[in-house]
């Protein structure tokens, strides 16, 4: 046997593409925030930044759900994990909460119905995808249609205004000058970070998504974990719906439009992670980045019509960069 070294370490001096991308993305974030801070006088104030977090909470909860699904389903966009029903699910749960509340039901019941409905949609997705093997893209596209229809059935395409003690608390001020919504974001982020990084769940979920056969060989309940991710995502949509109801004082049509931002942030989050993988932390960074962008544009009086276009350009540049960097040679 020769004494040659078996490992092939990365040649020194050459920065791994993943790190390059992460540093680039972080720089971009800093530059954007810096620009807004310089151009929009109100941007860099604590209260405005707290507002950004508050405005981002619904998106963050949905994007966390999407992140779980992508981790457990694998990174392939078409065959891997994706949940297109999150936006419509949010709308449906919000409408259900408002309708229940207006029908005189208590906060507990209404909230339970909303979150339960979210979880149920997740379960339907899980059954179609895990049990019957429908590609996630198609299954969640169909359930998105059904949810959007159900929302319309509940609301008759009108704005449902509602008010309840729970919504008052959620929308109201909390400790340390932050709103309760801000604290919900902090608490959910902390809880998910804990589950994904301190317990074996994160590691196992990654194994299920990246190499299901190896996960099965390691004795993991692959199907149950994959299904769990969809149910968790649905539940998060239900929770987000209550925050949304508090923000809108009820429900209004069109909340399904948030889907594209959810997809964008879960993709963008990948570049903020160490190994170009979806993570809760990366997704949070992406959500806040988009939140700052939207907020900053408002403050410097750029038309909101630009927002979609800029998000589109962002998606394309991230993925183009990634495919260029990962190209061999």
């Amino acid at each position, binding site marked *: 046997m020769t004494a040659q070294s078996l490992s092939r370490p990365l040649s020194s001096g050459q920065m791994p593409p993943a790190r390059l991308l992460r540093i680039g993305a972080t720089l971009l974030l800093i530059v954007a925030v810096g620009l807004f801070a310089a151009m929009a006088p109100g941007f860099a104030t604590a209260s405005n930044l707290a507002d950004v977090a508050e405005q981002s909470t619904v998106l963050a909860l949905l994007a966390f759900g999407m992140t779980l699904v992508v981790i457990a389903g694998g990174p392939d*966009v078409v065959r891997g994990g994706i949940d297109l029903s999150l936006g419509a699910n949010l709308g449906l749960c919000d409408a259900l909460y408002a309708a229940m509340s207006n029908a005189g039901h208590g906060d507990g019941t209404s909230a339970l119905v909303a979150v339960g409905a979210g979880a149920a949609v997740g379960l339907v997705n899980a059954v179609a995808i895990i*049990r019957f093997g429908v590609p996630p*893209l*198609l299954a969640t596209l169909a359930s998105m249609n059904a949810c959007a229809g159900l929302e*319309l059935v509940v609301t008759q395409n009108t704005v449902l205004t509602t008010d309840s003690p729970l919504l008052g608390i959620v929308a109201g001020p909390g400790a340390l000058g932050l709103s309760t919504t801000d604290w919900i974001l902090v608490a959910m982020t902390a809880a998910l970070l804990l589950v994904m990084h301190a317990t074996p769940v994160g590691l196992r979920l990654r194994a299920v998504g990246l190499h299901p056969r190896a996960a099965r060989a390691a004795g993991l309940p692959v199907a149950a974990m994959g299904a769990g991710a969809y149910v968790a995502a649905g539940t998060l949509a239900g929770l987000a719906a209550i925050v949304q109801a508090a923000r809108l004082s009820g429900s209004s049509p069109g909340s399904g439009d948030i889907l594209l931002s959810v997809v964008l942030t879960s993709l963008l989050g990948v570049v903020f992670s160490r190994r170009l993988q979806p993570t809760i932390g990366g997704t949070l960074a992406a959500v806040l980045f988009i939140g700052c962008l939207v907020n900053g544009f408002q403050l410097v009086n750029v038309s909101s019509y630009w927002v979609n276009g*800029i998000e*589109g350009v962002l998606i*394309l540049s991230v993925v183009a960069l990634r495919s260029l960097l990962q190209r061999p040679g």
Partner: protein
Amino acid sequence: MSVAAPGPAALRGIDLARAVRVMLPAVMLVIVACFAAASPTFRSGGNLVHVLINDVTLPALASLGMTLVVSTGGIDLSVGTAADLAALAAALTVTQGGDALLALSAGLAAALCVGVVNAILVAGFGIAPFLATLGILFIGESVQQLATNGGAPIYVVSNFPPLLDRLAHGAMLSIPIPLILLAMLSALTRLLLARTAYGRRAHATGIAPAVARHSGVPVRRVLAITYILSASLCGVAGLLLLATVKSYVPLSGNAFLLDAIGAVFLGTTISRDARPNVPGTLLGVLLFGVLRNGLLLVGWNFYWQQVAVGLLVLVVLGVSFGVRRRGRE
């Protein structure tokens, strides 16, 4: 060890696979029969033509493009964008006093632009089609909002060019022109996909891209052609929509997207090897059209139609993928 009888199990697998292939036509027949029994209006010839023109033709055109794209293993989320931008360009041309031919050329050119950009992103940069076309969808929304000051429709009722009007409302040999157009383009797409070298290469690219490349298939060219054709077909749909309603409503083309994806994948269930095919896609679009029309006529709320379509797609896909998965095991 349990001793299983080998024969019947295998036979059952084959029969089930056959059953899946006739499932879509069977569901179609059942639905038509139910509605025909329940609603006299549904049975009338006038209603049939109405369904074909109003509920089927436009999504069918977009679905033809989607059939090509899905054959190459991709997906085109920008079908609505191409249709909308074509309609926008044509509407602007007409309001500026341009004649019908100029408007049609402007519209097709706009759609072609979308196709070329998609082609560059997917074939040139190697970006995953889902992400590339998602980015274009975002950017297209911005463009439309900016061009219409936030989404105000453009009405072109006065001075509407007669040629455009005939395109939508005229008839040849008492067959409505939109139907003739659809029949011609369907036949062409069918020939292209099933009987030409391009079609064979497109399928090979979709099934096994590495094998296609190693067999000398010009994969990038095939992809580029596919996305350009898809956008062109959607452009025709957008122009037809403009001619039909004599106005351009921003973002209205997005309604085609779900139908197109759903129809293509429903259509794959009638093919022996589960490939996208034009007859299957048309059957899928027809099913959606008939379902919507029938539910409307039997008095179901418009909102329930969406729920029904979503659930139906979920069930049909669930059964077909479930059986295929069983067959593979």
